[in-house]
């Protein structure tokens, strides 16, 4: 038996280990640490088992923000995915307008998140904002700082503005990669535009759409910055989503234990739902 004596090659893998440790394992383990112990500062920790987890799971605040989060993410997906797809289908495939469209579409993605929040905050103000003033001028009473419906409308609209481009660009990339022969064959087979979409474009876009839905799901489920700048979770707590709730617990109340348990539950929900989406969308593949 020949045994490898020189193990120095492991040093080459070391940077990756260190990187992963610092950006994932250690922070996550700190949170785990907090979630199962109680501390009063000075680095004194007391074992508390699953107390914090039970507390969070029975917390009506958590239930409410989870409900709001699910509705928000559901709305965002229902609007952005079809809208992005339609935009991608309408974008030109050839010619000088391609780059113009691509740049225009990419612009919202380049705006920093808190700037997006500020922009919409100002634009939707009922007395001086372009959007707010216009809606009120149409005779519809609109004030997102007081009406929950208006706040929701503005939040969803802001997210649609910010992120539909991502779905559109992903779909566009998928559409462009379909070989011309498919369209030619469809023409020869006498397929109508709807049939071309249903039997060629949609099946070919499946993977891209899976990615788009996953990305939009994860991102919208974790939304924080734009909402906190726009509505601050209000009016009342009508737009208080999970991340806002979490920050209030952790920083506002300094309840590190419950906040850590909250984080882990939050993380597990995202992990589980992402897995569920992925499995459901890929299921037909293996059949």
């Amino acid at each position, binding site marked *: 038996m020949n045994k490898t004596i020189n193990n120095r090659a492991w040093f080459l893998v070391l940077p990756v280990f260190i990187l992963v440790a610092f950006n994932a394992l250690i922070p996550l383990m700190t949170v785990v640490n907090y979630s199962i112990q109680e501390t009063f500062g000075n680095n004194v920790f007391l074992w508390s088992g699953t107390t914090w987890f039970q507390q969070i799971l029975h917390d009506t605040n958590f239930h409410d923000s989870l409900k709001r989060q699910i509705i928000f993410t559901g709305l965002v997906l229902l609007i952005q995915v079809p809208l992005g797809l339609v935009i991608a289908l309408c974008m030109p495939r050839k010619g000088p307008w391609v780059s113009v469209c691509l740049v225009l579409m990419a612009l919202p993605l380049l705006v920093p998140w808190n700037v997006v929040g500020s922009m919409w905050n100002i634009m939707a103000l009922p007395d001086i904002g372009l959007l707010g003033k216009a809606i009120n001028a149409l005779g519809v009473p609109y004030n997102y700082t007081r009406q929950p419906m208006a706040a929701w409308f503005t939040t969803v609209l802001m997210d649609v503005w910010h992120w539909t481009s991502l779905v559109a660009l992903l779909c566009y990339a998928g559409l462009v990669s379909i*070989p011309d*022969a*498919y369209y*030619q*064959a469809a*023409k*020869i*087979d*006498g*397929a*109508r535009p709807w*049939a071309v979409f249903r*039997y*060629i474009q949609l*099946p*070919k876009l499946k993977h891209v759409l899976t990615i788009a839905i996953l990305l939009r799901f994860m991102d919208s489920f974790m939304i924080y910055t734009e909402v906190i700048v726009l509505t601050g979770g209000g009016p009342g707590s009508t737009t208080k989503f999970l991340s806002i709730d979490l920050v209030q617990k952790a920083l506002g109340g300094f309840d590190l234990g419950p906040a850590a348990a909250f984080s882990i539950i939050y993380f597990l929900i995202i992990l589980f739902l992402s897995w569920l989406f992925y499995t459901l969308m890929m299921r037909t593949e293996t*059949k």
Partner: protein
Amino acid sequence: MAKITLASLRHSYYLNPKSDEDFALKRLSLDWQDGGAYALLGPSGCGKTTLLNLISGLLVPTEGKILFDGADVSHLTPERRNIAQVFQFPVIYDTMTVYDNLAFPLRNRGVPEAEIDKRVREIGEMLDLTATLNNRASGLTADGKQKISLGRGLVRSDVNVIMFDEPLTVIDPHLKWQLRSKLKELHQRIKRTMIYVTHDQTEALTFADQVVVMNNGEVVQSGTPVELFEKPRHTFVGHFIGSPGMNLLPCEVKGGKAFFAGHMVDAENVAAAKNSAHLEIGVRPEFISIGGSGIEADIVKVSDAGRYRIVETQASGSTIKLLVAEGESIPTGKIHLSFDPSHTQIYEDGWIAGGRA
């Protein structure tokens, strides 16, 4: 079912073509009979796919007309022209079963389901797809998918012409032969006009009754495989078809006789040759024999090709290849070559002397 006429057809991908160079397809006129098997043969980029797409209606010609049975179809959509096309890469509808794939062109045209079922089963049986009719099309191998593409063309009973754009490119070598004979068999059976585009001479010569050889956007010769072999109209055809291709030797014509490096060579069309042009003698390796007298040459290389050997010789600075049958001995040292006069032609500036009308 249709007779196809191409009347001084020309095509350019530029909006305002100026010189001849701008045309991907230079002026051409052809007549194709109903029910024939035709091949378009030529190297990549010679314009054969352009011609195919013009006939199918995926492109609109810059100039000229395309007639199906005398009716002008130049500006009709592919659907209205009623043609079928099989592409280089198999095109199938992934989410459908094989059955639905075959039924798709009929369903799009509103054919009643009972009729569809009959046609699909008939074509499925013809292409040996019966066992897989209810499987998902995406799970099939490349040749199975290509059969589906073909089947979608065959399923319509009123198709004018079926076109193949290098359909065997992605098929495994051992299946190529099978699929090729299947195509030939289908043609015999249904007698539909078929046009087959390829850069592979074996595919073209075995499939077609009439082969159209193209180069640089022009039709160089259109003829039966035998004509292309025995009497190439252009040195390009001589060189492109046959393996190895035709020998081309520089020559002079003096007093109605052709001379290669001082040796008199008898050629079939020597009387038609004019001395003004760049002249070449063309003779296929199959029609050269080693004899007691003739052109003196040195043997450079002998390669074994199974049934025969390819002998490469050098004579007065030109390479001459010839074939020697299995079992025949090859002399060493200086040899003398003689050409079969009835298969030796003179070419002027590339074109056969006296042959270009």
